[in-house]
């Protein structure tokens, strides 16, 4: 770890206690959404479109309904007519109720293979599966467009007759009134780009393509619903945000939020993919019709084909530099596939693309484009990996052409406090320079690479991070512990982090805080576990909750001692101190002592509050990777990997390291092996874990992490968002390492064996 002088000393923060939910998770008792079992439960399955683009002519469920055990079949018509209400989809994504319902159940037309057209529920999951075959659907297939550039051309089949380009760029032309697949265009600009390129000694321009990538969480989507006779709907599900599920259900089912209780079960991974609802509204409608609890779960191929992966992209980057390495200008063109409905993360891609640098002149154009593919969802730093893959690869080529060390070139142009962001705000205290310096200082970077066809690459990555709303209540138990109740879904160890931050504030041990995650009926409003917000936002809640408890305990101690309140203090060591007594002995009580006396001195103490904090602290990561390329097979092997990251303050360093290592692994998958193979009919050819190749234990080495701690001034404990940054640098770092190894630059991710071999053959020609 690299701590800056700004970092204070803590007692609990920075230690590595066992996570509170750990035992349940290693003995098989933790209850995930898939483990929900209720008396009389029915099982639902979805009938999906075999076509990527088609008109639905007729649906006939009579044979399915005649099968013994089948209880109901529903279609789009069983939902209330949706309006055009805007709906949040997490991480800044916005859609309308109409589009969201189409993705849950198509009405007249299907826009991607796997889109639901009907659903069935039955007494047993085998029967539900049999019934799917008996639902007859007649289609009229339409031409398919599944590539972003083709979709932007005038000749492309149009997905939505009513769609017009929403132009958010002040400088561009008046939008046309023709139907289009370009849902929106945005632009960020600074300075004078032409002058910037004129001042450059070299200009490098490259084109990039990236595949759709799936989040690949191991737990498939699931949801169970029970619609009681009093109109109250209870939903148990696997989600990153119980309150957003509640809000989405209220809009789609047109019932008040107070009628819905969403209980977030343990979640088996999300990475942004579990911010939207797919199954819950269907299970709810089934339960309303049958009066029974209804459970739904996706199969793995359904997860691949019909949930939201990240956008496939086409990107062009042009950058100019002076001989001394100063970057003078940049032009970035981003075209992102939104999938079947508008809403790709191109905006985030645009704000992140150049974020590691302070460049005087640039233009960034972003296009959100609909294609006949599943609607994309958030995926860890949504939009950033593709944009920064392109920019960082060009920066590495510039360094190579100018014969400047790639980290020195970055240090020369690094963004700092005060550097303007594309959105107009200026960066506060950020750690880009500290990260770059720590990369240079690392033994990995100083080591020699030995052996043929081996190379090294570096790259930076950035993510803005967000904050959000969090609620919590804390009750002091007489045994000196705290019952902490939150609505914040714990995906990767936030129970531990929140317990530690409350413990730090109260001067007690992490083990004295017992966190519980509860449903929407049992806690105040709580935002998503997403956008790297959790440790930041819940940390604020813990801090303010801790201060509230300190105040109440101080008052109580004053009453017990019969001294004025202003003479009592709560120490950071968890000891309450008052003025000396008549015999001159200091008055002191530990947290545990006073907890045991509360009942007899005025009653138990508890506190509850909601915080709404922004400014999660933008963060940078820098990765160093060594690879070996097999010239015969095109396979790239990762030999060594080091990930440096400004994490603000590492609350529980093990889980911070884990976030970084996990992000690296996903980034390596994007860089080398993961890919959606599309047939000409718009069908994904590899919808299984066998063929969609996520990294296994054998594909990765140990991943060395360096935690740089530049505390976030916007947080009482200096926390920055950690989870998303590490997925950004792997693609360009590996691209540079391959170039270093075999002298070939690749512009397509994944850089699969085929891409590597084709490039090698091209070079020989």
């Amino acid at each position: 770890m690299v701590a800056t002088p700004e970092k204070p000393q803590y007692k609990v923060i920075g230690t590595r206690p066992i996570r509170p939910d750990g035992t349940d998770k290693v003995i098989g008792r933790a209850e995930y959404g898939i483990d929900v079992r209720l008396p009389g439960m029915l099982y639902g399955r979805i009938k999906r479109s075999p076509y990527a683009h088609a008109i639905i002519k007729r649906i006939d469920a009579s044979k399915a309904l005649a099968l013994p055990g089948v209880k109901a079949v529903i279609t789009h018509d069983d939902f209330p007519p949706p309006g055009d209400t805007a709906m949040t989809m997490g991480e800044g994504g916005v859609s309308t109720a109409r589009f969201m319902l189409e993705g849950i159940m198509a009405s007249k037309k299907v826009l991607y293979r796997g889109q639901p057209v009907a659903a069935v529920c039955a007494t047993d999951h085998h029967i539900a599966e049999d019934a799917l075959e008996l639902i007859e659907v007649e289609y009229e297939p339409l031409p398919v467009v599944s590539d972003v550039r083709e979709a932007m051309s005038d000749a492309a089949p149009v997905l939505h007759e009513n769609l017009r380009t929403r132009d958010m760029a002040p400088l561009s032309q008046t939008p046309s009134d023709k139907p289009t697949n370009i849902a929106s265009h945005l632009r960020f600009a600074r300075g004078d780009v032409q002058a910037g390129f004129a001042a450059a000694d070299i200009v490098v321009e490259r084109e990039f393509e990236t595949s759709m990538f799936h989040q690949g969480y191991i737990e498939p989507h699931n949801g169970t619903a029970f619609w009681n006779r009093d109109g109250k709907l209870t939903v148990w599900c696997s989600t990153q945000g119980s309150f957003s599920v509640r809000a989405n259900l209220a809009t789609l089912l047109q019932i008040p939020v107070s009628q819905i209780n969403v209980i977030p079960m343990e979640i088996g991974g999300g990475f942004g993919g579990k911010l939207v609802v797919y199954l819950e509204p269907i299970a709810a409608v089934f339960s309303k019709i049958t009066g029974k609890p209804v459970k739904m779960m996706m199969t793995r191929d359904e997860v691949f084909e019909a949930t939201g992966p990240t956008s496939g992209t086409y990107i062009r980057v042009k950058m100019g530099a002076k001989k001394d390495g100063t970057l003078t200008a940049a032009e970035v063109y981003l075209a992102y596939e939104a999938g079947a409905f508008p809403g790709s993360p191109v905006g985030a891609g645009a704000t992140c693309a150049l974020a590691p640098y302070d460049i005087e002149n640039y233009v960034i154009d972003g296009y959100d484009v609909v294609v006949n593919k599943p609607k994309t969802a958030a995926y860890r730093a949504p939009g950033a990996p593709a944009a920064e893959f392109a920019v960082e690869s060009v920066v590495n080529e510039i360094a190579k052409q100018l014969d400047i060390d790639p980290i020195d070139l970055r240090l020369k142009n690094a963004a700092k406090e005060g550097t303007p962001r594309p959105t107009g705000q200026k960066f506060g205290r950020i750690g880009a320079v500290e990260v770059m310096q720590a990369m240079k200082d690392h033994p990995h970077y100083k080591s020699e690479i030995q052996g043929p066809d081996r190379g090294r690459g570096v790259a930076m990555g950035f993510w803005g991070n967000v904050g959000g709303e969090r609620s919590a209540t804390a009750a002091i138990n007489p045994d000196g512990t705290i019952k902490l109740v939150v609505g914040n879904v714990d995906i990767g160890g936030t129970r531990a982090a929140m317990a530690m931050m409350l413990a730090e504030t109260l001067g007690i041990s992490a083990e004295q805080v017992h966190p519980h995650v509860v449903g929407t009926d049992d806690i105040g409003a709580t935002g998503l576990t997403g956008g790297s917000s959790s440790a930041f936002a819940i940390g604020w809640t813990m801090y303010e909750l801790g201060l509230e408890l300190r105040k109440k305990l101080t008052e109580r101690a004053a009453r017990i001692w019969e001294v004025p309140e202003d003479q009592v203090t709560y120490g950071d060591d968890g000891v309450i101190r008052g003025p000396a007594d008549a015999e001159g002995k200091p008055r002191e009580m530990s947290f545990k002592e006073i907890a045991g006396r509360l009942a007899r001195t005025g009653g138990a103490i508890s506190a509850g509050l909601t915080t709404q904090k922004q400014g999660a602290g933008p963060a940078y990561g820098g990765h160093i990777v060594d690879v070996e390329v097999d010239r015969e097979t095109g396979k790239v092997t990762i030999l060594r990997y080091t990930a440096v990251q400004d994490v603000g303050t590492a609350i529980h360093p093990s889980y911070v390291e884990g976030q970084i290592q996990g992000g690296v692994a996903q980034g390596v998958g994007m860089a080398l092996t993961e890919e959606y193979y599309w047939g000409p009919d718009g069908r994904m050819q590899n919808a299984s874990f066998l063929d969609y190749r996520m990294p296994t234990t054998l594909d990765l080495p140990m991943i060395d992490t360096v935690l740089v701690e530049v505390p976030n001034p916007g947080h009482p404990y200096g926390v920055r968002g950690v989870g998303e940054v590490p997925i950004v640098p792997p693609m360009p770092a590996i691209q540079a390492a391959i170039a270093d190894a075999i002298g070939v630059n690749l512009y397509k991710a994944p850089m699969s064996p085929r891409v590597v071999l084709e490039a090698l053959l091209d070079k020989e020609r």
Partner: protein
Amino acid sequence: MTERIIITATINDEETQFMADMRDSLLDALRERIGLTGTKEGCNNGNCGACAVIMDGRLVNSCCVMAAEVEGSEITTVEGLAEADGLTPLQEAFLEEAALQCGICTPGFLVASKALLDVNPHPSEHEIRFWLAGNLCRCTGYDKIIRAVQKAAAQRGA
């Protein structure tokens, strides 16, 4: 209508009799018929290892075994690892090394790691990686899982 059969097997050292559908996989039977939900479904076609159990001393993906095949077999699931009075060194090591984040793949990794240490008490890093290559984890990047298995192996040897 679906056909049901009665199966007898020793599950976590307990002779167990249960009724299963002829089409049930062992995974279906464990989760839906017996209520042992610690074993997880990630893919239902043998590619992720989340449903790993030990059957007659062999590591198998329970989604690829039919329930009807387990008549007379001995099966160990994640629920059968810990003793009444505490966790095994492997489970302790997973907690100490922070070898889990979301925890959904953890039962499969624990069962697979136990099966490894049963046949090879002192595996090298490469042997651990080779053995666990059938188990997917999307959260951790595997680093801490490998370290936890190494730690448990060292403790068992001590």
